[in-house]
């Protein structure tokens, strides 16, 4: 147990450091800050006259969570295994006394932490709103929880895609397409009769259809959080299996 924790944190630490050593991280963060700065500025101006609309400003920022996650997750995860496979470092990693699970866990947690770090930059905007007005923090916390869970789902999918190939471009495309399908899964329901089993299933699974509901009520809908986390566990499980596959006979 202690060695498991030690190895996972070691890999977590290395991956975190290497995020910040790669130019991609800075490009992504800059893009994110720029786009959200613009969204914030535009909306803050728009609602300047009516301070009671402050929640709409916040909402305008977090409306983009599924879109940003779709973009961020593949970029954050594409490198994680594909690069190690291409350069051969996976061999030195897997011939050290670490298990596949520890490697996957360390890398996933690093990706999730980096992803959340990007989202935490929005606190800057929220602090400005706090100074100017009186935003409701309940929905913000709820939407952060939902964002973390959605991130876990798409990052784990990206990790799986990265483990399947030694080409980062292929990894990005696979995880982008996969994540996109998860986002719009509720569109499929039109193929089925109203209120049938399949109709309700795809309505439930489709992320775009329900994401952001938390914000309306300020309540975390645990069913969706559970859906994302179960999905994430499945993808991580398969990532471990893909790494172990070289040992199958």
């Amino acid at each position, binding site marked *: 147990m202690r060695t498991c924790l030690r190895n996972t944190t070691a890999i977590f630490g290395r991956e975190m450091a290497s995020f910040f050593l790669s130019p991609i991280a800075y490009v992504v963060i800059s893009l994110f800050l720029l786009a959200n700065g613009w969204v914030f500025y535009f909306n803050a101006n728009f609602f300047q006259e009516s301070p009671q609309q402050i929640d709409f400003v916040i909402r305008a920022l977090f409306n983009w969570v599924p879109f940003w996650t779709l973009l961020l997750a593949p970029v954050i995860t594409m490198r994680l295994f594909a690069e190690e496979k291409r350069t051969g470092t996976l061999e030195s990693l897997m011939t050290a006394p670490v298990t596949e699970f520890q490697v996957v866990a360390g890398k996933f947690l690093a990706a999730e932490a980096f992803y959340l770090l990007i989202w935490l930059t929005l606190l800057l905007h929220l602090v400005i709103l706090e100074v100017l007005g009186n935003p409701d923090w309940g929905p913000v916390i709820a939407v952060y929880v939902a964002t973390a869970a959605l991130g876990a789902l798409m990052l784990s999918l990206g990790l799986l895609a990265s483990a399947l190939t030694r080409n980062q471009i292929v990894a990005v495309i696979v995880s982008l397409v996969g994540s996109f399908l998860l986002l719009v899964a509720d569109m499929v329901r039109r193929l089925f009769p109203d209120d049938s089993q399949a109709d309700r299933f795809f309505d439930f699974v489709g992320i775009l259809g329900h994401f952001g509901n938390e914000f309306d009520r300020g309540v975390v809908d645990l069913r969706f959080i559970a859906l994302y986390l179960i999905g994430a566990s499945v993808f991580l499980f398969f990532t471990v299996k893909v790494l172990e596959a*070289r040992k199958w006979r």
Partner: protein
Amino acid sequence: MIHVSQLTKHFGPVRALDRVSFDVPEGAIVGFLGPNGAGKTTTIRILTGFLPPDEGEVTIAGIDARTDSLGVRRIIGYLPEGVPIYPEMRVREYLRFRARIKGVPRAERKAAIARALASAGVEDVNRQITGTLSKGYRQRVGLADALLGNPRVLILDEPTVGLDPEQVRQFRSLLRGLGGDRTILLSTHVLSEVEQVAARIIIIRRGRIAAHDTTQNLRKRVGSLDRIRAEISGGSKAEVSPPQLLAALEKLPGVVEVRLERGNGPFHAFILRPQGDQDLREAVFHLVRDRGWSLRELTRLPVTLEEAFIDIVGERPAVDNRPIVEREHSAAEGHQGKEPRA
């Protein structure tokens, strides 16, 4: 220390290893030789627990690599082929990470890293980013990594590929210093690289053990393969044709085989194979002098494993049916950056 028995491994329809068996005694330095694609890396990957065998037994220090892969990985230091290192990390940072995942206790980590840096001779670059290191230094950083945690078994896969002769020499003396109580398995495709450090040599060929002998014995068997390369001109007006030159060379005592390697211009390059241990250089010189021809090159060619193998096993490489000129050419390329055989 390392015990391998009846190891078999398939990759799809390809049989990469075919009932490979050998033993490496504790504290020995053993050379693991074979042409590219012979199964060296596959064997090593099985030893290090990276791949499982289809059949056969592998134990290292009594630990079964198939059932306790983690246990085996704890006691070996492994330098994979091509020395994969994270290019964005600094040397010390990289070693710190490796020490952590290798389970070197926190209190000993600093000392262990300092020791590895010193033994591999990379203290002076410990703050450098590994991606900017020269090939020789990269190799040594890889060795420092393999030495972390003071492993009882060291497995090095092609550690000297791409090094210049001076670096190869340094690497060799480094290895000699590391021996003693450590068991070292050193893979390479160049015989000259191991014969000076390894007491025993295992030769693998197309997935099978072709020879497993002491270096001395092997050397004796291979020594007779020294060849001579001579560039001869039969005069500026080319009054003597290459076939005539060839015929004259063939008549020299002790010559087994003569091949015309290249025949452009007035000079023609010939490769001569002697019988036994004979040195033909003098005979060639006398012949050229007596006939009044000109000579502009006379060299002993280093024995390539390919040829050593033909001699040891009496088997012509079936895969390599390129023309002889091309084969010589690539053999020469393979020797670039390697020390010529002493």
